[in-house]
């Protein structure tokens, strides 16, 4: 009897202490200086030169806090689930393949950036509501290991059609379309190429030709692909990988000493164009700061800083691209594209069919 009473008293006391502790912590986080801080929520690939960001902070008077919240898909999903009480003010990193998910769930509020006219027309979208602003673009393409192909005296594949030829059997590694953004991009590229009905037949052939599927880009590129620095170390054995058109310049820029030519190349006829957007989060606490940050993201300084940090192309007209970028990884001339509305309509069904077709 007595023991239980005592334990109860002790426990309730401890419980109250815990609760009051959390209360005080809550009070602390809602500090009055919050409006001087603007928070950017993004995915793990976000990067910017320190000086460029510092210049923005100095000029605007806002301190930028960056929250990297998992890979692109996860970051979007988490942002949607927490949209009533968002973790930040601006979200960067939703691409055309997932755009509809963000818009349909009301993730963003309208804001037209100051330099909206400077954005290349091809990338503009949601023009009447201005809920998202395009920030960067890139192409998802099959990369090949130059050394491997010259060693085996084989011409590298150049198109979607080539990939199902017997000469390229058991050479390609790609990513899970349901968990990886390049994996999904490659699937959408094949759907754009072969049509709503034809893509499944293409993948049946690709599977018969020995395509290997791994969960994420890191694993595909750094552990399975023989042409990357990581893959060489891991004694990887697949000379074809679904990656980006900007991967070859990365192989040059991050090598020491720098080679005169990229060790990898891009199969020009296998590309799918990706565009990444940013927007002001609904219920953002510091919307003034968020707007300033969005203006900065499409500004010339940031747009020209972007390529070497995130290995993407600018969307701003006339923004300069570094020389090694154009030399080793030119943008695809005629990439496959797909209207975001069409992607929205079919994406989930396609991914489902793809999963049972290729993985099961």
């Amino acid at each position, binding site marked *: 009897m*007595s*023991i239980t009473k005592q334990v109860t008293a002790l426990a309730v006391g401890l419980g109250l202490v815990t609760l009051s502790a959390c209360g005080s*912590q809550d009070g602390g*986080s809602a500090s009055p200086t919050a409006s001087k801080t603007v928070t950017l929520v993004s995915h793990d690939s976000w990067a910017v030169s320190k000086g460029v960001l510092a210049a923005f902070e100095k000029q605007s008077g806002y301190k930028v806090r960056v929250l990297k919240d998992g890979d692109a898909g996860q970051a979007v999903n988490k942002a949607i689930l927490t949209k009533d009480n968002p973790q930040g003010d601006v979200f960067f990193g939703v691409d055309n393949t997932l755009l509809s998910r963000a818009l349909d769930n009301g993730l963003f509020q309208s804001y037209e950036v100051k330099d909206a006219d400077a954005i290349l027309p091809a990338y503009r979208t949601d023009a009447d509501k201005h809920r998202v602003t395009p920030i960067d673009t890139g192409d998802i393409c099959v990369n090949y290991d130059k050394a491997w192909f010259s060693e085996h005296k084989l011409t590298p594949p150049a198109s979607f059609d080539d990939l199902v030829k017997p000469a390229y059997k058991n050479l390609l590694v790609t990513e899970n379309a*349901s968990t990886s953004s390049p994996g999904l991009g490659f699937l959408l590229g094949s759907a754009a190429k072969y049509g709503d009905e034809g893509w499944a037949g293409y993948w049946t052939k690709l599977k018969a030709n020995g395509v290997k599927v791994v969960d994420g880009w*890191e694993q595909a590129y750094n*552990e399975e692909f023989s042409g990357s620095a990581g893959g060489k170390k891991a004694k990887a054995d697949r000379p074809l990988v679904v990656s980006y058109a900007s991967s070859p310049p990365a192989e040059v820029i991050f090598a020491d000493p720098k080679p005169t030519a990229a060790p990898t190349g891009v199969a020009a006829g296998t590309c799918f164009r990706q565009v990444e957007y940013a927007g002001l989060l609904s219920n953002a606490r510091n919307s003034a700061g968020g707007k300033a940050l969005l203006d900065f993201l499409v500004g010339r300084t940031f747009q020209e800083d972007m390529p070497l940090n995130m290995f993407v192309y600018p969307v701003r007209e006339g923004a300069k691209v570094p020389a090694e970028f154009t030399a080793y990884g030119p943008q695809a001339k005629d990439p496959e594209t797909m209207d975001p509305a069409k992607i929205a309509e079919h994406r989930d069904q396609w991914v489902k069919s793809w999963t049972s077709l290729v993985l099961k």
Partner: protein
Amino acid sequence: MAARRKGAAVSGALLALPVVFFALFFAYPVAAIVARGLHVDGVWRLGQVGEVLGDSGIRHVLWFTAWQALASTALTLLIALPGAYVFARFDFRGKQILRAVVTVPFVLPTVVVGTAFLALVGRGGLLDELWGVRLDTTVWAILLAHVFFNYAVVVRTVGGLWAQLDPRQEEAARVLGASRFAAWRQVTLPALAPAVAAASLMVFLFTFTSFGVVQILGGPTFATLEVEIYRQTSEIFDLGTAAVLTLVQFVAVGAILAVHAGTVRRRESVLRLVAPETTARRPRGRGQWALLGGVLTSIAVLLVLPLAVLVQRSFATPGGAGLGYYRALTRDDSGIFLVAPIAAIGNSLQYAVAATGIAVVIGSLAAAALTRRDAGRLVRGFDALLMLPLGVSAVTVGFGFLIALDEPPLDLRASWILVPLAQALVGVPFVVRTMLPVLRAVDGRLREAAAVLGASPWRVWREVDLPIVRRALLIAAGFAFAVSLGEFGATVFIARPDNPTLPVAVARLLGHPGDLNYGQAMALSTILMVVCAVALLVLERLRTDRTGEF
């Protein structure tokens, strides 16, 4: 009549806080996320259940989940039962340390376990370098990792009881002419059976709901229900399918726990137990030494080797063995975190201490209520309910927290307390299971005697109960601490990106290519392992006579 009602009232009062805790921080968030998936535009989409279960991909997942759990359980029993015997009956040097060592895997976060196995059986792993054998993306890697993870469950649950069985009963049977096997089968086995059943069910539960191990070692082709829930929620964002799968897992886990509760109750039925110190002796004869050697070898290969590979890799910098990766942990220039990775240690310790506090309070109150002889059926049912968080998808709990606890006065999403609350959910079952046997063993007559001699109720508690319960409380706290430290599934969703815990930081580092990130992940894992091992070694020193169920 009045006494009974009063007893019920006391139980109710004791249970109030645990019930509120579970309602608010478990039932409500889980219900919220399930409802979000099934209740769309004001309509309940219950037809989804049939649709999802009819999907061949999902059925494949269900089948794989069930058979790998069965296979893992069988394999674990096969390898760990001899271990349980050796720990129970043999006395050898370093036994205490070894018992802590075999428990380390159990409290390690599954990401670390997965990584350890990848380092052992994956590309460029030890087996690959020695014999060119790779087991990653095969089911064997998953099964072996499950054995590694759950070895301690069998050794502690079965071995704990085995050590307390009086060996003289078996000897008596042999004197009466039974063969050694017959004596074992007819005397020891029936006494052990409930413990073996309970251990098997726990292993089955843990492997049925396995997440990190399968995610890291399984590749895109193998998925358990738990991994599929994670994919559907976090990657595919099909909350409807995720909700249906959550319900399926709920039913399965509920069934497992119901059976488990039954076996636990049977186990607590009368057995003649003796002090474990009196039953263990040094091995005699060649057979016993061989058995001891075999068990030690299996522990070395299956449990110590993966851990050793982790440690070795944390020191294997490109320039030879060194502390390079550990030094890199103190820098914040990698860009993966906003803080130096080393800060994760501080975060983890703070969160784990808070979580331990909560788990001990809630767990002790629940255990006190469950111990009362006048506790009704309802109260005993709550025992099984407390175990549920062990088997419900952590991702469901994590996302549930994000969407449910968002309105004042329970707007906790920006609060640090969210992480300890989620961790306490998995800590409570351990506290309850550790405290229950000890509390039940306190002899009521001692209290009565003290009271008769004039001690005040406070003094009775301080002089009689506290000394007996204190050690159990410390052990419970230690387990809750270790489990909280390793909690990954829910924490990964609710830990703010700028406040990662150790397991979350390890996973984040592993998700980035490059030697330096990998090395740092190994270094952080090693640190986590050492912290867990120290906590467990301290616990070994505190072991009570009547061991808990873990």
